[in-house]
């Protein structure tokens, strides 16, 4: 299997610079704390976790989208283009990324489509701009290309001459998806692509993404807090908790044979149609990432916490084939702090 993305020991977080409250200045929020994983061609990979677990930060760090206060602390994220070109996004500045990597080899779909679309530009000019910068296409030609392309993804051609605000939320998100796939990148990062949409629009948007991924045989990363979305769409997935990946495996294994106590609790708390048996949630709340707990970050809420859990951090180990978890319960080396 050919890799399309190799992330190694990635560390990123937020350096708070609040004016006024002096104690907050210089405080670091440890949002992505040493994350490693490898993605392959022709797979749909999911990243799940609750709000504040660092899943969006992880995606931004991989994409190289560092807005003020988000800082890189170490590690690497290497992406591989269709012809095997290698780019380490953590070692490139924004200008270089825009010119050589974004849209062409890797694209990003944020939760709110309005973050990508320029409200003063017609939809067709969004397409034309990308085609002009990356392919060198002229305006007239680009408009025709956009029209052809929009028909292909099943969007009404009228949308081309509309401004973003004139389209419904569902339609706008499909336009953003169409833009992200336009140059057939080898990696598509979708951050909560359907969370702002209703179920029916959500299904339309997700099936479009999935169909395009099948046709292009590239890698699609879906970040979502909604376990249902992962359950129907992804092949493999990672569960994040408080800035760490606690479990990675095939989606079916995560759902039906979860290993980590956090994953178990997450799966058990999902309500299902046709099943009224009592669901119990977790007690407590996720830790404050300004001062994360020692050892395993889940230990204060974990029903199985042992002495070692508060002292040493478990590493991500392969327990069954292709199924990894970071939990002392599965370690033979309990009692032997690293």
């Amino acid at each position, binding site marked *: 299997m050919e890799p399309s993305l190799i992330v190694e020991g990635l560390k990123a977080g937020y350096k708070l610079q609040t004016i006024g409250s002096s104690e907050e200045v210089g405080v670091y929020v440890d949002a992505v704390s040493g994350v490693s994983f490898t993605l392959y061609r022709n797979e749909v990979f999911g990243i799940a976790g*609750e709000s504040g677990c660092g899943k969006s930060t992880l995606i931004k760090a991989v994409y190289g989208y560092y807005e003020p206060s988000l800082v890189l602390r170490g590690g690497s994220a290497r992406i591989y283009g269709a012809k095997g070109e290698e780019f380490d996004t953590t070692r490139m500045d924004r200008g270089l990324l825009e010119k050589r990597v974004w849209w062409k080899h890797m694209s990003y779909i944020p939760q709110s489509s309005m973050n990508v679309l320029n409200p003063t530009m017609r939809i067709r000019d969004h397409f034309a701009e990308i085609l002009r910068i990356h392919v060198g296409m002229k305006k007239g030609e680009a408009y025709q290309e956009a029209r052809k392309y929009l028909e292909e993804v099943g969007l009404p051609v009228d949308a081309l001459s509309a401004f973003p605000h004139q389209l419904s939320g569902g339609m706008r998100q499909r336009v953003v998806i169409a833009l992200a796939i336009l140059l057939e990148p080898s990696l598509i990062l979708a951050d909560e692509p359907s969370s702002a949409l*209703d*179920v029916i629009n959500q299904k339309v948007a997700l099936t479009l993404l999935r169909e395009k991924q099948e046709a292009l045989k590239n890698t699609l990363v879906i970040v979502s807090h909604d376990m*249902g979305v992962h*359950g129907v769409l992804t092949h493999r997935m990672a569960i994040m908790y408080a800035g760490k990946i606690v479990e990675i495996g095939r989606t079916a294994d995560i759902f039906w044979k979860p290993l980590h106590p956090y994953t178990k609790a997450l799966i058990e*708390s*999902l*309500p299902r149609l046709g099943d009224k048996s009592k669901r119990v949630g977790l007690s407590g*709340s996720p830790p404050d990432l300004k001062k994360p707990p020692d050892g395993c970050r889940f230990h204060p809420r974990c029903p199985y916490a042992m002495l070692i859990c508060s002292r040493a951090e478990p590493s991500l180990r392969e327990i069954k084939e292709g199924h990894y978890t970071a939990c002392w319960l599965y370690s033979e080396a309990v009692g032997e702090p690293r």
Partner: protein
Amino acid sequence: MSEQYMLRVVKLSRFFGYGFLGRVKFPAVDNVSFDMEYKPKIFTIAGESGCGKSTLARMILGILEPSEGAVIYKGKNIYALKSKERRWFYREVQAIFQDPYDTFNPLKKVDRYLYETARNLLDLKDAGKTQDIVDACLKRVGLSFDEIKGKYPSEFSGGQLQRISIARALIPEPKLIVADEPVSMIDASMRMNILNMFKEFKEAEEISFIYITHDLATAYYISDEIAIMYRGVIVEMGPADEVLIKCHHPYTKALIEALPEPSRRDDWLTRKVKPPGMEVKEFIMPGCKYADICPYREDICEEKKPPMFDVGNVKTACWLYK
């Protein structure tokens, strides 16, 4: 009380204007009727964004005057209450909203807010007694007064703050709580704790709930009865099991099929759905508002509004069941 129903919503409509000077009127809620008995239950109003469920909730809460129709609570029209009766109504019927950070004033300490609610709604003068009541309500949601004392809303997590807003709603000993998307901003692992609380309050303390949501899985989990709304109209209503499992109205079917359910993975990936059309156009359609998208459409659907037909215990507004 001789009235059979605790709450009656009678032919309720609310029009909003759009276009130049709001001259084009469209109904956000269109001729909606339902009843709730005194027996405590959880009644869910479910639908997608823009279906009118929040507008309906605000009219039931007495904070948005309907254009047509009436809301009758314990035999009294809530938009024709005298000032004393209005205070009684605000004690009996309480609200919980989606975003707990919006519920609380960010510059006011949470405990002060709870105190004021107790003093205003219960006419309490005695500080000690006020604290007892606030403390008791916090205990019912699994918190204690010491945990919240002197803190601002920003110092709590969303889940904690939503529990505090539930405690606030419990202060006047309400009989009915209208909860508008109370868990949609809460993380999955804590969502069920809050919903379980509603179930418990219903069973142990006989509080009825109107649960407004877009999430059919949680709706199935907690509700006794459910109404599905589309473009301002209730399209199907009845016991939650029958509505959500048997799905009579084509729209209910489409909703259930679009729900990402891991155990139906293959089915979900292969089955296509048609995206909804222009909202405003559908709101003002003369016949069934789902006719444009419906796979079973006939001529009558576009011409005439379907009334509610009885199908067993379920009522559905669809010409298929005439």
